[in-house]
């Protein structure tokens, strides 16, 4: 069963002469446990798609189902709560809270939800990502690769159904990129999580189970439907 599914997803900006069709009818389906890459050039609409998938922005038309649930039927506040329970984000610019240390950043979504932290699990994730020694450092004391690993840990910590990664290696050098990516793959497999990553780097995309290409807001060729 598809854990993530979109139907005729459209997002338009502006109108008339300057109408921009960022997404123009995307049908996409992602199975549980899959590692999917969305590839496209800059301006192809891939970031917009990711934002829609994560419920960060509302579409002009169409729906997104997560675990069979139409997420845009939710109110803003409910959507935020849904997001922090079901979806983990990893951004190109890490987006760590500068005033919190590594551990606090990782457990923030769990604490915001008012749930008890599964300390053993978090500790394991930290260890897997090689952050044990930096547990109490502030983001500013970490290198870029380390910061992105913290972001991955944060995305994993609440055991979300889906992890969405927006150019997770965009700010990293190639060696670190490889490093981070293999960690992402390992963790998604180990914890059985579904991962959707957008990138413009074909090489990196090759590491995923499946690649979907987007151009001018449309899926190019096959690949929209899952193989499974």
């Amino acid at each position, binding site marked *: 069963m598809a854990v993530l599914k979109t139907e005729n997803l459209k997002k338009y900006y502006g109108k008339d002469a300057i109408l921009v069709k960022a997404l123009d009818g995307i049908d996409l389906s992602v199975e549980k446990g899959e590692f999917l890459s969305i590839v496209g050039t800059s301006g192809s609409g891939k970031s917009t798609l990711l934002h829609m998938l994560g419920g960060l922005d509302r579409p002009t038309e169409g729906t997104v189902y997560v675990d069979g649930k139409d997420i845009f039927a939710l109110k803003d506040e409910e959507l935020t*709560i849904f997001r*922090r329970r079901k979806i983990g984000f990893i951004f190109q610019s890490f987006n760590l*809270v*500068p*005033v919190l240390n590594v551990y606090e950043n990782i457990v*923030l979504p769990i604490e*915001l939800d008012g749930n008890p932290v599964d300390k053993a699990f978090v500790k394991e994730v930290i260890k897997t990502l090689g952050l044990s020694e930096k547990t109490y450092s502030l983001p500013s004391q970490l290198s870029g690769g380390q910061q992105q690993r913290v972001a991955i840990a944060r995305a994993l910590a609440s055991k979300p159904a889906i992890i969405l990664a927006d150019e997770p290696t965009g700010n990293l050098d190639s060696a670190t990129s490889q490093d981070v990516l293999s960690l992402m793959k390992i963790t998604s497999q180990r914890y059985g999580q579904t991962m959707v990553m957008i990138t413009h780097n074909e090489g990196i995309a090759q590491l995923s189970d499946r690649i979907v290409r987007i151009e001018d807001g449309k899926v190019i060729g096959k690949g929209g439907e899952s193989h499974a």
Partner: protein
Amino acid sequence: MRKVKNKEVIRRLSDKSFRINRTRNLIAVVAIALTSMLFSALFSVGIGTVYTFQRQTARQSGGDAHGVFKELTQEEYEKLKVHPLIKESMPCRLVADYVRNPEFLKRHAEAWYYPEKAYPHCFIDIIEGKAPKAADEILLDETSMELLGLPKVPGQKVTLDLQLYSYDETITERTFTVSGVIKSDPALDVGFALVSEAYVDKYAQELAYKGQDDTGSTIGAIRMDVIFSNSLGIQKKLDQVLTESGFSTETGDDNYIASNANWAYVSDGADTDPTTVGAVAGALVLILITGYLIIYNIFRISIMKDIRYYGLLKTIGTTGRQIKKIIRRQALKLSVIGIPIGLLAGFFVGKALLPAILNSTGTVAPGETQIPVSPVIFIGAAVFSLITVFISTGHPARLAAKVSPIEALRFTEGMKAKKKGKRSSGGGKIWRMALSNLGRSKGKTAIIIVSLSLAVVLLNSVFTVTNSFDMDMFLRSFTSSDFLIANARYFNTEYYHGGSEELAAEESLTESFIEACQDIDGFEEGGRIYAANGKVGVKKEGLTIPSGYDVNESGEIGENYGKHFIPIPQTENGDYASMFYGVEDFILDEMKVWKGESDVDTIRQKLATGDYIIYSTSIGDKGEVYEDKVMHQPGDKITLSYTDRNGEYKEKEVTVLSVIKDDYWNLTNRLSSEFKYYVSSDFFKEILSDKFLMSCSFNVEEGKDRDVDAWLDSYTKSREPLMDYSSKLQYEEQFSSITGMFLMVGGSLAFVIGFIGILNFINSILTGIISRQREFAMMQAIGMTRRQLTKLVIAEGLYYALLTIVFSLAAGCMLSLTIVRKLSEGMWFMKYEFVITPMLIVFPVLILLGVLVPYLAFRFGNSGSVVEELQKVD
């Protein structure tokens, strides 16, 4: 939604982001402190005023007892005092109707018996010595001792000239030993001699009060001060005590006993006064707006600066409600620091302002103002400050809560400055860029301009109001001439009676004083007023008594005053008694004609014939005529009756020439009468006598008033101590203290609001520059020189100043012509005038600030190198 245990993490997030906002916090704390200072100063002054007036009233009404039963006989007192409602009762007695020592002429003294337990309630404060025990011991106040020329120590021998009964002028001299000296109450310009219980016993005979009779003497009557368990519903309790003890509360009944609640506890008076309520409410709203403007702006700027941060929090699952909580918590923290500082500061500001405010009303002596350290001040001000903080942070918090995570990831305040355009236009481009920079955040710009303008407009309004105080109008009501001289009794509570030629010798003005005045260098012209009370009658025939008067059972016409019906006094012949004034020409100029002939020359000529008179009618506080009490209209013919100088009874028909408005301070003997007539002094002297010389008003040359005032002061002290005077100068001083108060209070308010406006301005410029460091670095990277950048920020500051000037000029003029105009015509001695000079004076200061603040902020705020700034990642 299920309840989640996330308080801890919210607290942590809030506290940690709190710490990195140092500059914001500092400015916010100052703003909150200023706001709460304004509130607490307002509350201090308000509560201090009520409290001071309450103490004051308590003093004037003789004590802080809850209520009083008046003029009781011993028997009545015994009956009343056992009533269970009464917690404590104190029988006080007047032991002589007058104390006639000549030393007490200008400041009269009263002789009382107070039981010792009443001392603290009646503000009797023994500075030295002890309470009187023996019959020949008394307590005396220090000023009275001074007047008697005695050292203020116990043990002195004092002889009091007691006039026991008001109707009997016999003076009984009694010598006492001063057992103790009590403090003189500046609120009460009266001396006190307090006798012992032994005295009351010794003279029980003469103090035996038999109830009210025609003599009007109240010697020995008991004034029973009572204290109940609390001060609620005092008059009700008094009435209950009376009825349950078998007395009546109805005036006119035989067993009626007068009682009243101490005014000091009657708080409804001040509370329901709509002007006061309006003024206080207005001040509260004004402070709230002022506080709102700055606190709102501070938080808005700070949140805009951190908007990406809030967006990020939202992306990882912080709900809007949680973000609001984070911001609320920070606001609360800032309040916890700022409000107490403001409360304390405000309390002391209030303490400093209150005397100026109250003294200027002329009713409270310096040093008599007091602000109780009441929790109401602090709780009230704190609550209002918190409300302001929460209202002000509400919108910014909602802004942060509503931020869409996507937008926040991209967000920069407004649009980026445009870098297109022609290279060549040089300086002009910077100006245009500055203007569009202001337009980036219209809300912020608007708030800065409004808050700066508010101060300017307020300042201008304060000056307009103060300027509208018209000294001439004010003085005209009190004195129409520069000086007024008369017997000291005239100015004292005894006024001028003009009842008989014999008595007149003691209360009249002396010709020698007038002559001395006429010889003063600078004397211009003056006029005498003669007054005779009841010497001239008005025939009842042909008179229609207007509806404003009461009629009693026996058909007499008069007025009801509480227990008594006071009929209009009559002469021996049964005619209505008049208050008859004879005035010299100079006085005619001072009259305010209501109806009838108003040309002074015509009046002078017609009065001189003796066939015409002027009738003066009563007016209210605001100068309005009580139309239902106007006895005559111009043209009415009335018949006067009098006994002329040769003892011959005469009647004379005269015509009412004009009706004038009572001029209490200048033209009357300060006693009321239904028939007040003015005739020429010659006619007055012709039919009566020149003995009834009440007063003389005169003018002096310009610039001589101060000298003359000083001369009169010394003359009435040394040469003729029985004479006294009042002067325009005295009223001028009162006037300037009123205007001074307005200037001071309004000025300090404008100052604080101006300060807040400037703070707001500095804050926005500063945060603007700090948050745009990257942008500036980028500008420099693409080739803008530092010089040009400095020019840019200065241009922005100048635009703020210019917009403020335009806005405040428009708003100030509009307000001046509407609300301020209304305010400026609020009191009878005010005259509105359109003023914008204060604004014009402030504008250069604004321009200077507009240049200086951005310049300094930029110089000290922008220190990193271009590369460093560009490399900084959020």
